[in-house]
């Protein structure tokens, strides 16, 4: 391919991505007739429901990330170390959320954990929040697991573990001081995807009737004209901020620079 042709393809791709974004931002600024303004943004930020649902979802996202890390890092580590034969099976299980629609899962949850079941999680707000967090963690599992597993592939897990053990380290020390720091970038990118998923998730939150950001977005989209676009722009900026942070962290992780 010639240089000109490659540039043309690149431009076409950029246009394909950027034009809709430009349109979205442009429209979100057009609430006031005849001139650009941040009126839509002001309206969104002033809405107490926005602040409530947004902060609810941020907290849920952070909890999901913590839970996901606690679940995935030791699991992926253990599978690599002791059960390498089970890796295909575990990978398959972690991919299931991509195939099983969230609505199926959430109905399953509601059937299993309703107020007349053996574990009535939906009976309390705390229980429902917990259930929702498990649901989110499950949805993010494919991304989190893959990211961490790929991160583990860059280090010699078995030998490093044995080296640490011979120096007297137990499992907790090995995972927190050795495994986690070495897969930190992978964990962060998994966390970022998790964050994005939780912030946008609609089905589970709606059916479990929790005041999350996803259902709020949907509600606004159905009832307002300019505000949804302002919201979408805000969401987009958050996403890009997260990605920028990952880049920064990657750059400042000294030991990752070379030698692998």
């Amino acid at each position, binding site marked *: 391919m010639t240089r000109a042709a490659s540039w043309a393809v690149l431009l076409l791709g950029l246009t394909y991505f950027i034009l809709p974004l430009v349109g979205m931002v442009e429209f979100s600024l057009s609430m006031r007739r005849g001139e650009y303004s941040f009126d839509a943004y002001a309206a969104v930020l002033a809405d107490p429901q926005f602040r409530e649902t947004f902060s609810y979802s941020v907290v849920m996202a952070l909890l999901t990330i913590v839970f996901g890390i606690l679940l995935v890092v030791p699991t992926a580590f253990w599978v690599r170390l002791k059960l390498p034969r089970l890796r295909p099976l575990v990978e398959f299980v972690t991919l299931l959320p991509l195939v099983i629609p969230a609505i199926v899962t959430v109905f399953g949850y509601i059937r299993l954990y309703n107020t007349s079941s053996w574990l009535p999680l939906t009976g309390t707000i705390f229980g429902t929040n917990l259930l929702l967090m498990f649901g989110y963690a499950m949805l993010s599992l494919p991304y989190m697991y893959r990211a961490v597993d790929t991160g583990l592939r860059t280090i*010699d897990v078995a030998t*490093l573990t*044995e*080296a640490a*053990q*011979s120096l007297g380290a137990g499992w907790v020390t090995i995972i927190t001081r050795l495994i986690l720091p*070495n897969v930190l970038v992978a964990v962060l990118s998994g966390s970022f995807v998790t964050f994005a998923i939780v912030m946008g998730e609609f089905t589970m939150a709606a059916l479990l009737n929790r005041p999350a950001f996803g259902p709020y977005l949907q509600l606004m989209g159905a009832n307002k004209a300019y505000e949804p676009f302002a919201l979408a722009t805000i969401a987009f900026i958050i996403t890009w901020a997260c990605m920028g942070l990952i880049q920064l962290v990657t750059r400042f992780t*000294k*030991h990752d620079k070379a*030698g692998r």
Partner: protein
Amino acid sequence: MSFLTISHLEKSFGVTRVVKNFNLDVEKGEFISLLGPSGCGKTTVLRMVAGFETPSAGNITIEGREVSSLRPNQRNIGMVFQAYALFPNLTVAQNVGFGLRVKGVPAREIAARVEEMLALIGLPELGDRYPFQLSGGQQQRVALARALAPKPQVLLLDEPLSALDAKVRVSLRNEIRAIQRELGITTIFVTHDQEEALSMSDRIVVMHQGVAEQVGTPFEIYNTPATRFVAGFVGTLNTLDAKVLDPSIGRVKLGGNEMTLGRAIPPGEALLGLRPEMLRLGAHPGEAALTGTITELDFLGSVIRLRIDLGGQPLAVDLFNTTRQAPPKVGETVSLALNPSDALVIGG
């Protein structure tokens, strides 16, 4: 009672017996090498001492304490791996201090000990570097410092030099030995390199198919190999079929030559072992003489290796290179002398 005792140690993976009735007593401060070909079970023995593999049978005691039931992190053992295995996310100093930190030693003491260890391995300036910024030889020295920092009872090294290039390998093996002597730490060193084993060890265990064929000083292993395998594996050995003419004085006939060993040997057929360096060109009074034809000549610098046809049996001979004597030529028939009492009669 020895410092480290391994008795009747066995290990099977599935139906394969990888280590068979392995016994070894190691004195405090001794440097022991496990030497043997690939797959003979050296690493497996070492990993059982470290606790990474569970023995199928047998006992391991260190200072009288049975350690078989202890997990690796409960044994007081330092280990150095072939692949260095430094923690990539930690600096050199943090790597060396890791074991102490795990033990909860105060930061100030750790810093002092780390400094001491870095000085010991000759890298006092490199504490702040990350492993990827070091050469292979430096990484392995740091790995050694890391293993030694918590003052382990036993140091285990699994082919620590085999990933390094030849020059570094020789200098580092001298350094390891010097450090080991200085600290007086009991050490088991695994290698498949006979030169390493011979030059470093107090005693060598030659392993073959999971069995310890011979345990002895480098001198004993080389000069009086107990089995045919040991004789063939350690050093270069010519094995020659001989016919015993007179067992009582050890008179044998080999390749058209006759010689007298001067000691009683079993009658019938004998297998003689001759090291290439035992033989000299020319006739020397009081020594046995063999006659053969040179078929090949390799000039190796300080040594000239000849291949000689001795009545149909091949024989390798090493001569020192000297300017005083013109080297022999291929096709020449030469007379070789050897001290008959040096010749090994191989059983087993």
